[in-house]
């Protein structure tokens, strides 16, 4: 089992009242799964994804990732865990504007203290695989949205994560571009990478093997 959420609650204090963002979430994810999360706007999809990605905390419940109790881990240990196993893909791509495609891909490796030659090989590998070798010296502003998201996915994959968390990865793309990304996910999944994506599109959701529906922070 890759991860397990047991009775997760998350809330914020607003005007003296508890507003629940996540209510009693129970979820088990096996390695190799492809899950789509759906729900209306504001239902807590991104929140849930961030909790799973250990970017956000929760207030109650248990979270085990590869049998490690995340809710008991120290910040540093947790950071190491997600650095090693999790890759993120964002709706707004979130590439760094001052860095070239090559440098954007290299960045996560820098934070993992990977040696220069190894980094070079890994980046070249990714560029090759995504067919963007010719674009390696361009800046994000010089790419189309679809190409930027391609780089975003490549960046998420570069450190060979077990799990990819994608928050509306196709939200800013046209349907053709979106389809390409989905095909890519499908292929990655067949290679054994676990994927959890948030989406608003029924069509994209069908790429997943399982769909989770959220409403007001609750799984239905």
């Amino acid at each position: 089992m890759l991860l397990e959420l047991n009775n997760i609650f998350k809330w914020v204090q607003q005007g003296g009242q508890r507003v629940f963002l996540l209510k009693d979430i129970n979820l088990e994810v096996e390695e190799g799964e492809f899950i789509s999360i759906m729900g209306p706007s504001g239902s807590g999809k991104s929140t849930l994804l961030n909790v799973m990605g250990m970017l956000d905390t929760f207030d109650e419940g248990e979270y085990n990732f590869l049998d490690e109790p995340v809710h008991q881990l120290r910040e540093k240990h947790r950071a190491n865990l997600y650095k090693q196993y999790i890759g993120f893909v964002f709706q707004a791509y979130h590439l760094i504007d001052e860095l070239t495609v090559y440098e954007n891909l290299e960045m996560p490796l820098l934070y993992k203290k990977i040696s220069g030659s190894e980094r070079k090989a890994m980046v070249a590998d990714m560029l090759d695989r995504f067919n963007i070798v010719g674009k390696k010296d361009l800046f994000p502003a010089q790419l189309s949205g679809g190409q930027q998201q391609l780089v975003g996915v490549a960046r998420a994959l570069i450190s060979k994560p077990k799990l990819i968390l994608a928050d509306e990865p196709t939200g800013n793309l046209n349907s053709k571009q979106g389809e390409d990304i989905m095909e890519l996910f499908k292929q990655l999944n067949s290679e054994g990478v676990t994927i959890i994506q948030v989406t608003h599109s029924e069509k994209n959701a069908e790429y997943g093997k399982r769909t989770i529906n959220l409403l007001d922070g609750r799984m239905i």
Partner: protein
Amino acid sequence: MIKNYLKIAWRNLFKNRGYTLINISGLAVGVCCFILIALYVKNEFSYDRFHSNSDNIYRVWQYENYGPKEEFVNTTTPISMVNVLKNNYPEIEDGSRVYRFNALVKKSDSEFNEEIRGVDPSFFQIFDFELIEGNTSAPFSSANSIILSESSAKKYFGEEDPIGKSLSVEFDEEIKFFEVAAIAANPPQESSIQFDMLVSLENEALFFSERARESWFNVVVESYLLLKPNQSAAQLEAKFPTIIKQYLGDNYEEGTFFLHLQPMTEIHLDPSLPPGLEPISNPKYAYVMGTIGFLILLLACINFVTLAVGRSFSRATEVGVRKALGAFRKQIVHQFWGEALLITLMAVSLGIFLALLFQETFNSLTGKLLYIDFDLSFWLITLGLVVFIALIAGIYPSIVLSKYNPIEVLRSRMVKGASMGLFGKSLVITQFVASIVMLIGTLMIGRQIDFLVSKDLGYQKDAIVVVPTNMSGEEADAFAELYVAELKKQPEVAEASWSILSFAENGWVNAGFTDKKNTYREFAVNIVNPGFLQTHNIQITEGRDFIIGNASDAQNGVLVNETFVKRFGLENPIGKPYDKFDIKILGVMKDFNFESLNNNIEPLLLTINLDPIFKHTENVELQHTTQPRVSVRLEAQNMTASIATLKNIWEKTNPGQEFEYSFLDEALSAQYQNELRSKSVVNIASILAIFIACMGLFGLATLTVARRKAEIGIRKVMGATITDIVGMISKDFIKLVLIATLFAFPIAWWVMDQWLQGFAYSVGISWWTFVLVGIIVVGIALVTVSFQSIKASMTNPVKSLRTE
């Protein structure tokens, strides 16, 4: 429309209170420094300009050259100079001498030792010193007239009307009565002629012997000449040699004696000529201060610009929207100007207020009495300041921002990505260059002064108390003798002796004579009694010290220093006379710094009896009144108790006089007034400069972090740790500071080298000062930036990414 701009500007500033506060307070501090320093500089440059004739008044100075090392420049002249010149050259409208002497002034019950000025009756016609009471048209109607300044009138007469009252003045042995003829306003601070009391030099026979009055080598008075309108001083100077030849007669030698005219308005700031009766300033200090004032103002303005530019990125959207909505470029420019102007006005007002608040503090630092005068020139300068600051501060943001292409801005690509441009970087670098130079200056000046104050002078200065007798003549000598004898019996007193000048007086008697080979030579003289060397622990390298009670020592025995022997080429001097002087050299003293460390050690001769020396000197220069001064070395225990003993014995032996004393080490530190003052001013200035620069850095860091919020978030998600983020943000700024040090070090080196050249003895420039300053500045910058970068790196990336 303007009202509209100001209204929008005001709302904008209010909305960004933190930014506005940093801006206004930084600028206000800059303006305050600038105003105070401008006062100082203006004061220094306005000396002697209040006379309506100031452009036609000159002071005579003379240059004598008798070969290498035998050159003399004096701004005081022979006594007869003014009359000689006046009688020979019709170009001269009038002239007056100014002579300074000390005398005991008595008015029935009160008596004070006063510095009196002797001047010619035409004094008030030449100069514009104001007479406010009494005979204001002809104040020196009689030789017995004395004119008091307002403050000395108050000192002697209080509320009484002083006009017509009499004062007695005691010259060496003689007492003369003067009648108060007029009261003059206290001379302005910006005057090279100062006085408390004036008497007419028609009485010159009272002050000078016949021989002194005739001599052309006895320089004791300042000679001021008023030229007729449109007369050229240079042309007049060219005519002087004929007169010199005529009056020097047999003493004349081609190319040795020259007379020159110095414009009165240049007296105060021309250190190439020695001071006359009043101290002068080195314009160095005015320039240093002026530069500091300007730099601090500039630093504050730069802050304004960097902050405005930084913030402008976050305002680019606003500009884009406005433009998209049809605003003209001009309107946007106007709006930024409106904001700059508003901030400037507030900052300048606050700055003036601060300057008023701190002017007393500033005066105590500079030793001046300067007050803000809300006159026309002040308002003009203020207006200039407002325009200057608003221009500098408004120009960049208004031009750059108004140029933004709305489409690009609204797509918000460029804005998010724009890093601190080259312009912004050079501004930060400029600020740090200025701060680093000032900081190095502060440390070096501090070290130099500590060095001067603590340097081994070759004699003991600690635990020594100097007691002036304030008496003259044989009676004074007798008293000094008695007092010293009584003191030596006290257990608190280690040694005691008296001399005509003590180490507390900077500059002893200068004696000049022409030796047998017809070379003019000069040396310093002091009259001491035999315990002098022991009191100050001065060492003898050859021969022996004076022996107490030895009659022949007291008659013609002298001690000379090593420089005397070397400079005058003496060989085996012990027991021999020197040149024409009927003296016997008893011993050679190890060199010691009897003058301040601004001067090198000159030949020195100590004697008990002055007569054999003065018999053959042609020129005697006195910088201090002569009177027996008792130096006492105390056993270093309870100083206050020891002083009480000195006072006690004083009162027993000399009931009439007030007991005065000073600690020698304190008196010596006072010789470095100028240096001490510039030290404290530069100290404060550099702290302010660093503070202002850091405020700018802080603001910039805030803006940078705000701008890079998303990037920081992404990097964190990609696995960056807090250290990574702090390192990344700080690195950029530290790089700038390091570049600044590269520029600042050579500049500071050059500046300090220039400054140290003014000292005969200096610590020299040390590399570790530079290293230390580098570390300090990088440290301060790091702390300043870390505040923001740590905060940024701790924020949850989910938050910063969501707002995107």
